[in-house]
């Protein structure tokens, strides 16, 4: 077990290193020169150019640039925003709780929809409910999530005026806060639910064919006990992995959904930074989200090792 965990932890190191290398070169990919791109009209002022080049460390050789960038990175220093002058780390930490809140709420919505539907689908295989929910999940897979958001706004905000079409109030356990969270969370959650539901259905179908399920049934256990205690528990193992893999989709999804609902998280931050050519902020936010994604997947893998003892040996 300890060996398997150690192996998994060690495998994250090169990935994290790779992410930082890619993020480092992101700014250096800017066509021409990041300095000319930021300065725009002011380009041509040699003094300003020189000081900006020095700020980005562009006046030094690449390996030195990477060295000093990486050292500050380890210390949690991602540079300063070009627009607000605040440290990038501060900007990110300001916005992160909102993104986390949206992501967790979406995950909750997704699990609440997908697992019951998956179970119903698998236990009443080829019935009306099964066909119906599989059809809906296939459409859900093909629907761009931001368009689903637009449709929900059309119905619940424009047409019925029940919920706000976007915005945010500081976190509180009150309707005033939750009414802003509801539509974005449902939008993001439903688009994730399609995948999880399909996975739950197929995993449960596979488990239901196992001999221990037949044994449980032949002991005379009630069907609900067979499903809940014997089948579903084992079927949930691959489902947990799928939920973990979806973190990437969840984070990518928040970027778009935050934009649809003007939700003040990392997504709206990175889009604003891109449009303002605030490169250190773009670099920092993307690096942060990628690292967050890797860490979540690591945690999921460790949970997986805990859930399925067979995996501990062949890591």
């Amino acid at each position, binding site marked *: 077990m300890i060996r398997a965990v150690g192996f998994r932890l060690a495998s994250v190191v*090169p*990935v994290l290193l*790779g*992410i930082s*290398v*890619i*993020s480092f070169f*992101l*700014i250096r*990919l*800017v*066509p021409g020169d990041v300095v000319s791109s930021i300065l725009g009209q002011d380009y041509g002022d040699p003094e300003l150019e020189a000081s900006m080049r020095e700020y980005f460390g562009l006046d030094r050789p690449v390996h030195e640039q990477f060295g000093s960038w990486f050292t500050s990175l380890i210390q949690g220093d991602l540079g300063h925003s070009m627009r607000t002058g605040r440290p990038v780390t501060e900007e990110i930490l300001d916005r992160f709780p909102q993104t986390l809140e949206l992501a967790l709420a979406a995950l909750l919505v997704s699990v609440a929809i997908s697992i019951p539907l998956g179970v119903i689908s698998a236990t009443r295989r080829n019935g009306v409910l099964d066909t119906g929910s*599989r*059809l809906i999940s*296939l*459409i859900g*897979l*093909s*629907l*761009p*999530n*931001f*368009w689903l958001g*637009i*449709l929900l*706004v*059309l119905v619940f905000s*424009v047409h019925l005026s029940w919920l706000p079409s976007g915005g945010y109030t500081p976190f509180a356990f009150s309707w005033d806060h939750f009414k802003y969270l509801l539509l974005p969370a449902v939008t993001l959650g439903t*688009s*994730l639910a*399609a*995948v999880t539901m*399909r996975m739950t*259905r*197929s995993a449960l*179908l596979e488990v239901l064919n196992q001999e221990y399920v037949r044994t449980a049934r032949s002991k005379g256990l009630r069907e609900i006990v067979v499903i809940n205690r014997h089948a579903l528990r084992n079927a949930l193992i691959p489902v947990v992995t799928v939920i973990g*893999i*979806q*973190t*990437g*989709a969840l*984070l*990518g*999804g928040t*970027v*778009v959904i935050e*934009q*649809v609902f003007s939700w003040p998280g990392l997504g709206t931050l*990175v*889009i604003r930074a*891109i*449009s303002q050519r605030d490169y250190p902020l*773009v670099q920092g936010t*993307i690096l942060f*989200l*990628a690292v967050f*994604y*890797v860490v979540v997947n690591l945690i999921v893998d460790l949970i997986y090792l805990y859930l399925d003892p067979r995996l501990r040996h062949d890591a």
Partner: protein
Amino acid sequence: MPSQPTVDEPTGAVRQWLRGRARMPLLRTLRHDRIGIAGAVIVATIIGAAALAPWLAPYDPTAMSSHRLAAPGGIFPLGSDEAGRDLLSRVLYGARTSIQVSVVVVTLASLIGVTLGLLAGFYRGVLDGVIMRIMDMIFAFPTLLLALAVVAALGPDTRNLIIALTVVFVPSFARVTRGAVLSISKEPYVEAARSAGLRDRRIILKYILPNSMAPIAVQFTISLAYAILVEASLGYLGLGVPPPAPSWGSMLSTGKAFMEISVWPSLVPGICIMITVLGFNLLGDALRDSLDPRLRSRVMR
């Protein structure tokens, strides 16, 4: 949006299928699959509409008029947008943009990814390690974020959009191909070719690649569906094909701003995206099904 899909590595069943039907065209196996046929029909219709857009579209997609946000019917079959442009013409040209970008991206990504996968799977060792670790690093970024990052750095235009999306789609092809190559390399006929003294290039091109095509074909189809979704999302965020060229994503973004006056600009492009992606997903599912009977219970039928 779902996370980037990859097909399972080929199993015994796939290999068996390959052995039995290696020369059989993929599409023939779809003949008895109604869902697959539906997918193929949708895909063919959309590609046809995109190709024939200049002849089908009643108006110039960028021509403005004074009939702003008109409802469907009358002179605009599907209504008009906030600048009085014909929505039907715009979605037809939007299909062109979307299909062109996705096909170019997935083709480039498959060429690069399949080559890398062949090299990694055939030669193993250090080359395999290096290639696959780089693929893992790219895979470590959430798809949309990586595309976003590359477009942000390079600046939004069509060429950069294609570069960004290609980078994002290469690793899944490399993985799928490598998996297929690893299992096929153990086949007796590859051993035989080796001991007969054939050169590596010939073994790869004559035996390994043709027999790895099945999972690659499935990956190609589902990647097209996903590329259309990612392209639309970037378009919605203002980082896709630059205006005034019509793209489904950017149409939805402007449509949303006027949704209280007219719902059509926020409905029509979304329906187009959904139908197109659904078509590719149905086709991909059916292909996967006919290639791997083991998975048959898992998908729509």
